[in-house]
């Protein structure tokens, strides 16, 4: 089954572009939204594998969304997208448990590579969990 990638950003144009790229280059099931709370609900209901979020959003900051996600499902890797001037906040997000951050503008291959790594991490966690449950 293809992995489900959820992307949240307050800019619809960026969402469109990312969806276009991922649809062209991968077989992921990609869901995009401008509403962080909707992204959170999808993570719960759509068996999401990775959540990619903007750092600065008017409704909810990326770091806050990260905290909410960790409370809901700590196993979903969280990738943060940031602008050049806000790298410090991204580093802070890493401290808070984000899987990785990526600085805009970024190359198509960069995001695909980062998602692949996140999916590998996700798989590793799921396997560990399975072993624990079986053991």
């Amino acid at each position, binding site marked *: 089954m293809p992995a489900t990638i959820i992307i949240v950003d307050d800019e619809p*144009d960026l969402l469109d572009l990312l969806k276009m790229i991922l649809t062209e280059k991968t077989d992921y099931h990609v869901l995009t939204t401008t509403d962080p709370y909707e992204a959170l609900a999808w993570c719960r209901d759509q068996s999401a594998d990775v959540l990619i979020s903007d750092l600065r959003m008017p409704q909810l900051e990326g770091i806050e969304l990260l905290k909410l996600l960790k409370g809901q499902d700590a196993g979903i890797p969280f990738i943060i997208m940031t602008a050049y001037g806000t790298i410090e906040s991204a580093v802070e997000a890493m401290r808070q448990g984000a899987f990785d951050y990526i600085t805009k503008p970024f*190359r198509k291959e960069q995001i695909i590579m980062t998602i692949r790594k996140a999916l590998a991490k996700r798989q590793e966690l799921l396997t560990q969990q399975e072993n624990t449950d079986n053991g």
Partner: protein
Amino acid sequence: MGVLDWFRRKNRTASAGGMAVFQKKYESFKRLLDANNDTLELMARLEAVAEGDFVFDIQFIRSRSQAILDKVATIVEELNILGDNRYQALGNLYDSLREKITQEIATPLATESVPLVMPLSQVDRRHLLQVGGKNANLGELKNRLHLPTPEGFVLTNAAFRLVMRENHLTEKIRIFLDGLNPDNLEALGTQSRELQEAIRQATIPPALQAEVLKHYQALSAQLGSQPALALRSSGIYEDQEYSFAGLFLTRLNVPFADFFPAYLEVLASQFNRRALVYLCQKRLAHREQAMSVGCLAMVPAVASGVLFTTDPMGQRQDVMLVDAAWGLGPAVVDGTVTPDHFVLSKKPPITLLEQQINDKPVFLQGQKSQMGLATSAVPAEQRRQPALTPEQLLTLGRYGLRLEEYFGEPLDIEFAVDPQGRLLIMQARPLLVEAPTPTEKRPAAVGEREQLLLDGGTVACFGVAAGPVYLIQKDQDLANFPEGAILVARHTSARYGMVLHRARGMVIDIGSATSHLAILAREYKVPALVDTGVATEVLQPGQVITVDATHMRVYAGEVHELLDQAHKRSPSPIISSPIYAKLRRVLRWITPLNLVDPKLSDLTPENCKTLHDITRFAHQMGIKEMFDLAEKAGQRDDIHSVKLKTTIPFNLHIIDLGGGIEAGRRAKFVPPEAISSIPMRALWKGISHPDISWAGPIPIDVKGLYAVVSRSLTASSDHSDFWSRTFAIISFNYLNYSSRLGYHFATIDAYVSDIRNDNYITFRFKGGAADEVRRGRRVRFLGAVLEKLDFDVEVTGDLVVGRLWKYPRELMEEKLDMLGRLMGCARQRDMLMADDAIVDWYTEAFLAGNYRFEGSPSLTTAPPDQPAHS
């Protein structure tokens, strides 16, 4: 100690006034050079992003554009200091470009407070967010370009919001849009009809009624009559990154008594089925919807049409295309009649190159005393007469050129001719242009085994597609349009646009490449042929066909040979995404370079159209100002402008800030050995290396380019031409070297002393006369060599920047020596690099000391090389 500190100290004893001025101007010059370098780098990075490999957002476009604007502001300011405010025209141009860029990157905001109604005479591009793209463009060309348009007023987006709010429709629309399913056309149709009906039944708030009445009365007073109106929609996203071609309603010939019902009908059309499918396809349904309506005094047009300021198929260079028919405009864009087709040359003087006069049996006109249009028969003697006179065509061509230049991109312009024969512009919007296909002339049809069904017609969108024929004879047929079918129909009705996202291809009997449906086909990249004449008769429903739109042929069955070729050619869809479109729209005011004459005869503020032009202009003028300043000061003892005495055909002029030329050897011409500047001496050693040739035509591999190279070299030996001069500002430790040779530009900024930490070299190389690919190869050659020489190298587009810091003096001198040799070798080297493999060959050859590139694999036609010195 920095060069300026040194300079200040050294010259304390010099004539204070003159030196203070020179010093101030030299500081300005340095700031101008720094800002110039920064600007070029920022532009190159932005251009690299636009090529399609990056993910970015509007904030990125905004911040990078602002950074470039800030740098160019510095350039303009410093140039005016250098030139005693003689370049103020450049400041005005900068302001207008800044305004255009800022408007382009503005984002529609729902909360902005704007008037409900604005007279068209007060509308321009600054009101884009309030009045929509179409009205803003019309206002701009009326009020800023003073081109003839109808008079009228605009009901802004604020009026739309007021009507929706007061009628409790805002939330209803939101819920409706959230639940859209574009794949169920039938359900969509029912929902769309309900919402449109609710809007048509809305009550107009009294405040809006009063405002409209006031503006209509003012319009009537101005015209001396009570005109019927044309109500034209202008959607919030329309005619920017999205065409919405033909999707919204236009109501023509509306008497004022019927104004508000017609207005509501136009507003409702925003939610018609076709528009909703488009919103879904373009992923705009979740954004705020608003519509402004332009209300123009009705023009009882005797003829109307469309002008494309360039060939949208990208096949013909330097032409404009005109379609025109009798009566009002819809007949042309809806494909009701086959219009006359004219081709105008774009290069002044505009001339009529071709015309195809068609039979135009009917025309549209406004009905007397009531809303709507009526179709009438064209008198027999007029049916085959041209709809436009030669004078009208030329006037139209002039308007088109002016508008394209002003808006900075190809345009699709609707026009009308009033009963007095006067041309009026009704609308101007961006024209989506196909990249030219690399095909030669129309090749022979593919293999004999393939059955050719149609041969001919007009290309509406290039490409090849295969699928089953689906014949549309009536609107009801649209509801069942199958995924992946080929749309076949009699006319180019814009209504068919709503199934284009499901269509693989399109073949139409009658219509032109300028119709709304053709525009939509290009937007959706659906290969399409129009004007085939007999498609609906020849092609059978359900029959599988291959449409080779590029070559205007239709075959029976699937022709895999063609489909595979087309698949290989199709570009990534990413660059057609809205954010890339936005970046390209911003870039058109920033990066194109119009000042391309290598002799710079076009170097005037009037010829500057972009920030790149300003940068180029200011850089050249900055050098000239510095040079003039130095030349004027040349008679004095404290500032030296001298020329290097050498057999190399170099027009090298030197300004010595102090210590750069040996004391006692200062004269009008100085020999190289009199130079005491450490970096200049080192560089000269490389430039004058016995194996480096600076004279005579160098071998080239493309005959046609021989003239280009020869011209550059002739220019460089012409002592009267300022721009062929190479320019060096030197001190004992400092060198600022600027060289233009042929089409490229190289600068070296270096400081070399015994204090290792102060030492640096920055080398920049940009431009070239060859095509982009070849320029790219030269840049890769330079980059590869610089890397081997330990430079930090950055290659962006055709700009290569190499930097080196904090090496000991001896090593810095070695590097400058090598740069001197490299510049000599790189001269026009792009002409030779016919393929990628050769780049590596040249790199190795240079590093091995084979500076004449003997044994080069690319030399096919080789005029004799003539070394300048033996």
